[in-house]
């Protein structure tokens, strides 16, 4: 008899074990986990000595043929763009043969400084069934806010390798979704499961030393402490590059990189 009673208890325990694994997973993800514990004493940045890095990302080769996005699946999206054609942003080349949407960031050399994320969030907007901006940076631990300006439901599905993936929908009228990222990762692709063409990229870095090239291919990273760094250049279509750069105290380092057609 007693034996049988225990048999009945076994499934209860299985059930409890299955339930208890979930809160663990969520608590790990929801807490804004600080960057890995400091190995050495971190130095504060001296604002009196900082300089900047500016540069341009050029493109060499035949300009790829821009491909139009077919939004017929969701008429709300077509209407939001006034039925004008919208083109894919990955692989886009500026008219002056430079590249937009290049994520430029300090890959090595800034680890000894104490970077605290700013209190204002980085905002990702969904507008005309496109992400705005297409490429963006955010610091580890910084607030990352997603808003929906479209009269249609969007879904935000980041697919990181090192951070926790999430997949949440945002109907029109729903409040902003606010998240943080626990670990540096370049880049986290984000897709919308409602609109397959939508994609943006998030560069999660430990420092605020990053920039994204604009429609003239230029970028500027400000507030760089003097020193020698490895800069990383990331593009969605044309691969990545690295370059050494030395920033003098209060000075400007100029960089030019060139991507070739793939």
């Amino acid at each position, binding site marked *: 008899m007693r034996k049988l009673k225990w048999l009945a208890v076994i499934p209860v325990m299985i059930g409890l074990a299955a339930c208890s694994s979930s809160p663990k997973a969520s608590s790990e993800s929801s807490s804004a986990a600080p960057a890995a514990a400091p190995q050495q004493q971190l130095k504060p940045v001296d604002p009196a000595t900082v300089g900047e890095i500016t540069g341009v990302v050029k493109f060499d080769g035949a300009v790829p043929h821009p491909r139009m*996005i077919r939004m017929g*699946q969701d008429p709300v999206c077509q209407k939001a763009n006034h039925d004008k054609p919208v083109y894919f942003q990955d692989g886009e080349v500026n008219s002056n043969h430079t590249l937009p949407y290049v994520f430029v960031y300090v890959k090595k050399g800034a680890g000894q400084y104490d970077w605290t994320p700013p209190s204002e969030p980085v905002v990702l907007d969904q507008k005309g069934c496109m992400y705005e901006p297409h490429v963006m940076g955010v610091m580890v631990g910084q607030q990352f806010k997603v808003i929906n300006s479209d009269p249609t*439901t969007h879904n935000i599905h980041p697919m990181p390798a090192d951070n926790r993936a999430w997949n949440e929908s945002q109907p029109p009228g729903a409040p902003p979704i606010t998240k943080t990222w626990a670990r540096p990762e370049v880049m986290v692709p984000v897709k919308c499961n409602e609109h*397959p063409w939508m994609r943006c990229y998030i560069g999660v870095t430990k420092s605020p030393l990053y920039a994204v090239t604009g429609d003239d291919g230029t970028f500027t990273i400000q507030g760089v402490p003097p020193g020698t760094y490895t800069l990383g250049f990331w593009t969605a279509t044309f691969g990545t590059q690295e370059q050494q750069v030395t920033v003098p105290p209060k000075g400007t380092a100029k960089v030019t990189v060139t991507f070739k057609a793939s």
Partner: protein
Amino acid sequence: MALALAIIVALITIVSVVLFHVHHWWLPENIARNGAAFHNQFMLTMAVTGLFFVAAQLSLAYFLWRYKDRGDARKARYTHGNNTLEKIWTSVGAVLFIGMNLLGYRLWAQARFVGASPGALRIEVWAEQFQYWFRYASPDGSGHFCETNVHLMDDATGNPLGMNLSNPACQKNVVTDTLGVPVNRQVELLLRSKDVIHSFFVRELRLQQDIVPGMVIPIHFTATKVGTYEIVCTQLCGLGHYKMRAFMKVMTEPDFEKWLKQQAAEQ
């Protein structure tokens, strides 16, 4: 109580039948060549079931009122049944139900047992969460569907089907988000899915078929009326299921050719 209930049952029966009969909410218009046969079978079934429905419900209502215990001396009939009656309604039911079913078989055989005719226009339908794509071999009907590669599939760069764009056969293929078809010409669709089970349903064609990953399912139809019709997904495919749809544009032959050339130019 018994009278009131009998009236309620009868009223529900009558109102239900009337609402079926007025066709206020009814099948959308038919544009399929075999739509008339569908309609006949539908109406035959409606008549048979309607007869049973009215007979059964009204008997219930009548019995409720007629045989209610009124406290009088009447005794209930003592019977354990009647084998002749059992045999009658068993055989009538069997003949009616199975016979009605057999009558509908021509329709099913034409649609599913027989393949598309050789002159049919072949179009590939690709479904994914939560979008349809339609692939035509070329703007002029020549060529073939080039191979697709799952690793090249990328919706966010405009290559949802994973075609090798340096392959000349792929360059001829036209991929659209609207299903354009010529009127009065048979169309064969090859249904394929990239991820989960979807479905292809055009109400006006009375045509529904699941799209199963790992399978290529052929279906065929002939649309007989120019216009724009909705294609909806009827198989639960994930969070965006409610908005998974596309449009089917039925055009005259010249319009269709012009439309397909324009689609080719836009890509």
